[in-house]
């Protein structure tokens, strides 16, 4: 897992406020600008650059992270709103030995990514859905609904749908 950076930064400007939160299982306490977006905080203050920014207005889903167990857009939240939350980013998904999580593995198996820019957002959304639902609707329509909060401009979604089904079937078998 990528290490969280802890350096003073040019991004601490103007009025600031202290935030204290858990990031991928580690406690983080930082003084942040009250204007700073959560996505910028994650990427440039913590150095966790796997969370991407695609539209800055909550439509594309590239910046999706998991907050208190639920998938959330980090580009439409301020860093100060993150005080006290439990935050998980794409950097926390793979296994400790660096091997892929079953959802990541399924994306690899099914060629469900091309440029890879939107991919972390999809993965975080899917991880959250899998964790929060006993049973995943693996019909085409069910999966389309599941990923309907994320835009992908490369794949045309077909292989992402296959990957979600593949992962769901493997994970549900395990349970």
């Amino acid at each position, binding site marked *: 897992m990528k290490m969280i950076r802890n350096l003073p930064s040019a991004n601490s400007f103007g009025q600031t406020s202290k935030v204290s939160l858990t990031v991928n299982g580690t406690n983080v306490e930082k003084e942040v600008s009250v204007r700073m977006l959560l996505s910028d905080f994650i990427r440039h203050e913590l150095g966790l650059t796997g969370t991407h920014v695609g539209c800055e*207005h909550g439509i594309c889903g590239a910046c999706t992270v998991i907050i208190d167990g639920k998938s959330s857009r980090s580009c439409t939240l301020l860093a100060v709103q993150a005080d006290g939350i439990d935050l998980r980013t*794409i950097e926390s998904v793979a296994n400790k030995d660096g091997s892929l999580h079953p959802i990541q593995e399924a994306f690899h198996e099914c060629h469900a990514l091309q440029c890879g820019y939107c991919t972390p957002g999809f993965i975080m959304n899917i991880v959250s859905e899998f964790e929060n639902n006993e049973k995943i609707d693996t019909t085409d329509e069910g999966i389309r609904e599941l990923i309907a909060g994320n835009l992908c401009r490369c794949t045309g979604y*077909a292989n992402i749908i296959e990957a979600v089904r593949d992962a769901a079937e493997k994970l549900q078998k395990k349970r």
Partner: protein
Amino acid sequence: MSTRSFGTRVKRNVDPKLLKGEGSFIDDLDLPGVLHAAFVRSPFARAKIKSVDTDYARSMDGVMAIYTCDNIGNLDMELPLLIPHDCMNDARTQRTLARDDVYHVGQAVVMVVAINRYLAEDAALMVDVDYEPMDVEVDIEKAILPDAPLVHPTHPGNIAADLTQISGDPESAFARAEHVTKIRVEVERSTAAPMETRSVAAYYDKISGALTVWDGTQAPLTVRGGLASIFEIDEDKVRVIAPDVGGGFGQKVMFPHPDELLVPLAAMELGLPVKYIEDRRENFISSNQERKQIHHIELYATKDGDVIGLKDFFLHDTGAFIPYGIAIAQVASTSIAGPYRIPNIHVQFQAVYTPTVTITPYRGCGRPQACFAIERAMDQLAEELGIDRFEIRRRNLISDDQFPYPREGLIFADGLPVTMDSGQYFKALDLIEEKIDVRNFPKMQEEARSQGKYLGLGLAYYVEGTGLGPYEGGHIKIHPITGKVYVNTGLSGQGQGHDTVFAQIVADQLGVNVEDVILTEGDSGAYDWGVATFASRAAVVSGNAIHKTALIVRKKTIKAAANMLEVDEDQIELRDGHAWVSNSNRSVSLAAVATATNPLRYAFNEAAKAATQFAPASRHDGPALDEGQAPGLEATDYYSPPAATWAYGVHAAIVEVDEITCETKIKKYALVHDCGNMINPTIVEGQVMGGVAQGIAGAMYEKVEFDDDGNISNANFVDFVIPYATEIPKVEMYHLETPTPLNPLGVKGVGEAGCIATAATIASGLTDALREFGNPKFRSTPITPSMIHEVISSSSSG
């Protein structure tokens, strides 16, 4: 070679890092002390700039520099015309920063550099620019009228270019025709909207005088050449790296957007790294777009549907500037006859300046517009002559034995005459007819009708000139320590999986695992000969260059291994990372062969001992390297295509319209395509599927909308409707593989294939579905529920 990897579904090498969030997109680069740029952009489509006041902004906290046209030295100029052509008179290009005039909403006027993006944007807001707005006309049909306001006073009628191309003897064919079909079609403006916006970062090292630029570009070597030339420094002092790039689709091939010059300038002047990350709105209002064309196409036919002549006149919206020349309009012109023989062609276009974002290629590059024109016209001809839509195409397709089929007189976007090189056009049509189940369709249509649903069958055929020159190169080196194979090429990737398909090509020749072939692309510091990624050319041009290079390295490896193993060369087999003596268990690893071919003085490991001058294996009578011999297992070679190679395919769909909601559902979508030999079918299918999705987006959803004043009224992802997974149907794909005779691998490009015929297919299907509502024709895209509602309601009320 034990197993051949070319043609197999090898998984991508690049995936794991991207899946774990460990990619290196430009905004992910950790550049200590990096400064951030933000732009002041024109709020007017056309205006005079009366004054620019930066004093207050300059005094704000954190502001490091402010650039206007007055303090950027020789960058205060009109940017290069990248692709000149005689049919453009005094082509207009954008200035780096506006001087005196602005020509579209979003044009860069001032660049602010500050210690972070927030402060840079604050300061940009406080720059005071006084504009005097002028009249504008954004409608291309009105813009060419005599009294329309001019974008550039130099260009009467707003005509940027006017070109006529003629093949055969159209006049006599027109006179001979027994039937003429004439239609007007219109394709709307769209935008590539890559998920990663354009971005650039730069650092200048004063000690060495080296400028490093990270650019999310499809054309790193072009950027390198351009920067060196504009800044007047040696090419070798400029290193351009395209790291991971989050989609391009053509938008990132054009150079330079102003930021690509100004960010390096600021880095040189300020001595610190500087970066600019475009925001989504900026991507809409300042990064190049494509598609708007209006065609008037006429088909001249015999009574039994043999099209003997084609006349097309079209207007092409080029936006405020024409830096990429006529490439798009030229591709449309030369693709206008599609897969049909049509021996007599008269095609003319006029490129029209409008005070809008500049037009340069977006995936498809004129092909979707040409396909929409010819295919909607073929459907119309079929209807007028009472011939089935499949049959009218069958009567006109080029047959297998007619290849190579030249269209003399038509010059393609590579400056070479159009010749369709190979294909099985009839077979593809037969296959799609079977797969879309034409025979059962009327029954389905009738059944749906009884449930208040309207079904239609859509059909469209396309061709795609791919793999354009001038050339690309490949460099291959077998690493002496690990035996891994390092490959370089000059173009760059934006998700196409080059690292895997190029590795497959090399793995087959050198007998190594695909994972042990490591590609570096898009880094002028690693390899600096080549052009760029565009026109579905990477697999064709770099692929063949790398293949040719691999053959040389293979030969060197076999020769050296034969020497080491003391057998004849024809007894050597390369597999599993070793050179083997056939039918024996004697082998030597490629790492050892690579080490042994480099005469050494020092023994740094066991393998190296064998290569030192006193080791028995390296004993020789003369010098350690013979005259003309190079050390190591390494080679460079190039591939320069003799002409574009033409891929093709045919799409069919069954669409369903709900009479009440006017929603269109794609019930079934099938396609047949042929890109020659497939290096990796999984990656081919991914490319085609992504193209289809963008095609459907253009057919039914996406349109960059301008108000009368030239503002884009939907410059965001809420209002510019990019389909989610809920809008894109399952697509059935069928492959034909007709190898092209033009290159050693027999491959054709596939990057743009999927998007070309989609709009024509959907329009064809909707026309079929809604025939009883006054026989609407659907000759413009995107086809929205409002358009369908208009058709249904006006027909029922009338």
